[in-house]
Each structure stands twice: as C-alpha cells, then as structure tokens.
C-alpha cells in the first residue's frame, strides 16, 4: 500500500506546464521577437508568411469566424467556448493544446464575434482583429515545440534548446537567459516535419471529423509513387542568399509572386485546329477544336494546403 501511495502522491504534485489564460499570455510565452536580433532576414521573411498569421486566413479573412458562428463547433455565446471548440488549433495554433486554458478560447471567440459584428464600432473591430493576429506559429513553435516527433526515443523538446540544422554549444546573446543551446533536429529538413500539419486526411480524433490540409497525404501517396524525391523544404524553403526562405511561399496575399510560382509548377499547352467537320454528306460544319494539356510538376495535388 505504501509503495503504491508514494508515486501517486508524486504524480499529483508534479507541476504541469504553465498555461496561458489569455491571448496575450500565450503570445508572450511563444514570442519570437528576440530571434530578430540575430536572424533579421529570416524573421522578416517569416513576418510576411502565413505562419505569422495562421488564424487570419487569406487576405485577413478571419477563417475561424464561420467555425464559431455556423459550424458544428459553433457556440451561442463566447463564454461557451473551450479549447475543444477549436480543432483548428491542432495545426493553426499547436502550442494552445498544451499551453492554453479554456479562457483563451473564450477570449478568442469574443474577438471573432466582435470583429464580425456589423454593429460594432470600427475601432472595436480593429482591436478584435489585432487580438486574433497575436496568435502565431512563431519560431519557437517549429524550432522547439514541433521539432521532435520521435519522443519515445528522443524525448520531448528541451526547454532551453533551439532545434535547427546543427548542434551549437551556445546559442543566443549572452544576455539572453532562454534557448541557450542549439541541437540538430532529426527531422527539420525532412518532409515529415511539414507533414505534422500539412496533413494526411480527415482528423477523426475530434467529436466531428475535420478535413483540412491533405498535402502530405498527396505527397506520400501520389508524388513519391511517381518517382518524386524532393522534400517540401526544397521547393517551399529554397535558399535565398544561402538561407532557407522562411516566407514558405506561396504567399496567397501576394498574387504576383504566387502567380509566378504556380506558372513554374503548372504548364499549359494549347493546340488549335480550324476545319470543316463532315458528319454526313453535304453537311459541312465550320468548327474550331481546342486541345488543352495541363501538367502539374509540383510534389502534391493542386489545390491543397
């Protein structure tokens, strides 16, 4: 009896991770602004990326508004929201699962309600949108929280370690007290890393199945099977000035660059013929025939996400 009671007591007293009660608290916990000091170029790329605005949608469309107002996950009042209201957090805000309390979901839902309220003052709507925009997939999310997938053999990410392309005995400015070491991630440069979020199919773990990105499934089953070998990073993080591009193009808010990227991956061949068709004697029909051939050389279906 004594032997059993001790470990249970220890477990009961073991502190869990500190949890954010508010959007500001979670944003502060994963704030990567300090990274800018030494990685200004990368930070600048990331700031323009969709990872920097994962809840804002394309063209700041606030993609979570339909979720809370008109889906199976809808709530009558913001106070009814919990973390379970937001299955999208799995990828759009992965740090929320372990580091946020339900009160953050309430605050986010209130912001979404306010931002979409046609009767709300413009300044309140703007403030609500700004609040949602604080929730980001920051440097820390990918280079720490999501950096290890094989936890059974490699352990969980260490709190003071930034995971990247190489081991570093020291990392960061001497004055910084956080992320003081660098370790090489086993998967950061592999497609499987991106596959954690750019998914494989319906997410059945929720109380209502959610089908979002299926890019990694397409990559695995319909690109590799045709002999493709490139990783996600080779196309979407091409080196710019020797540094992997953390804009992760395409940037759907920039139509010109997106158009260029798509045109490089998708070809269009058009063949035309003008002639007179003859179905039966004496009934010539003037006709144009247009043959089109579209070829996709990307490593996944288009469209997907």
């Amino acid at each position: 009896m004594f032997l059993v009671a001790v470990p249970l007591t220890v477990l009961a007293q073991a502190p869990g991770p500190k949890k954010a009660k508010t959007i500001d608290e979670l944003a502060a916990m994963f704030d990567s602004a300090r990274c800018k000091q030494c990685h200004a170029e990368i930070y600048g790329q990331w700031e323009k990326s969709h990872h920097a605005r994962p809840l804002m949608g394309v063209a700041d469309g606030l993609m979570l508004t339909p979720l809370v107002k008109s889906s199976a996950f809808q709530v009558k009042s913001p106070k009814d929201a919990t973390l379970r209201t937001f299955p999208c957090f799995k990828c759009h805000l992965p740090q929320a699962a372990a580091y946020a309390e339900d009160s953050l979901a309430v605050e986010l839902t209130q912001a979404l309600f306010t931002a979409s309220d046609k009767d709300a003052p413009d300044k309140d709507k703007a403030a609500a949108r700004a609040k949602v925009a604080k929730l980001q997939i920051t440097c820390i999310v990918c280079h720490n929280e999501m950096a290890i997938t094989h936890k059974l053999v490699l352990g969980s990410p260490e709190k003071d370690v930034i995971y990247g392309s190489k081991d570093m005995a020291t990392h960061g400015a001497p004055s910084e007290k956080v992320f003081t070491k660098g370790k090489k991630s086993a998967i950061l440069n592999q497609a499987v890393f991106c596959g954690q979020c750019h998914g494989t199919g319906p997410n059945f773990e929720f109380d209502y199945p959610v089908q979002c990105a299926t890019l990694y499934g397409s990559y695995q089953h319909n690109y590799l099977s045709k002999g493709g070998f490139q990783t996600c990073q080779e196309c979407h993080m091409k080196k710019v000035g020797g540094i992997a591009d953390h804009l992760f193009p395409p940037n759907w808010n920039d139509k010109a660059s997106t158009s260029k990227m798509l045109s490089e991956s998708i070809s269009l061949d058009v063949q035309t013929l003008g002639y007179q068709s003859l179905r039966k004697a004496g009934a010539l029909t003037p006709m144009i025939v247009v043959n089109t051939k579209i070829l996709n050389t990307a490593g996944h279906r288009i469209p997907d996400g």
Partner: protein
Amino acid sequence: MTTKSVDGKEISKDERNYNPQATSCLNEKMVYGAQNKASYVRDTSLQPYESKNETFEIKLPEGVRTADVTVELNYEIHVPENKVPIHKVTRRVTLDR
C-alpha cells in the same frame, strides 16, 4: 476558355474546375471550410506528374470563318472572383488557307 469572333462577339464560353470536393458525409451536399468537411467524395484536382487533357469543340456561327480563342488557367481563392492568374494563351484560328 472563351471564343470570340474577330469583331469581339462571344461565340462560346466553357470551363473546367480542378479541385478536391468534400461533403460532411452526413448528406450529399458539397461544402467548403475545413470545419464542415469530413471527407473528399470526388477529386478532380491537378495530380503530381499527371496531365489533364481536354478537348473543346466549337461550332462557328454561319459566316464566321475566323475566331480568337483564349484559354485562361487561374487559381481561385475561396470564390471564383478572387483569381490568381497562372497562364493565358490567345490564338487566332481560321478556316481560311
């Protein structure tokens, strides 16, 4: 794809859509939005290393022997009106030799 006579009058217009299509699996209605989709039920998207081949046959109106054919390939974001152009090809096609 749009076909116009040389004076700009539209002769024909046709389109093809390439995208995965999902329902909630609770009914037969196609839906948008990850929160509403449960599974794809049809997939006409552009697959890697595969081509989509189409043939369009346009019967010309009486007296018309020349037309301008424009083929546009666009990526639509959320709604058909919000387009990212990918390719645009225009050809003048004539029956005259």
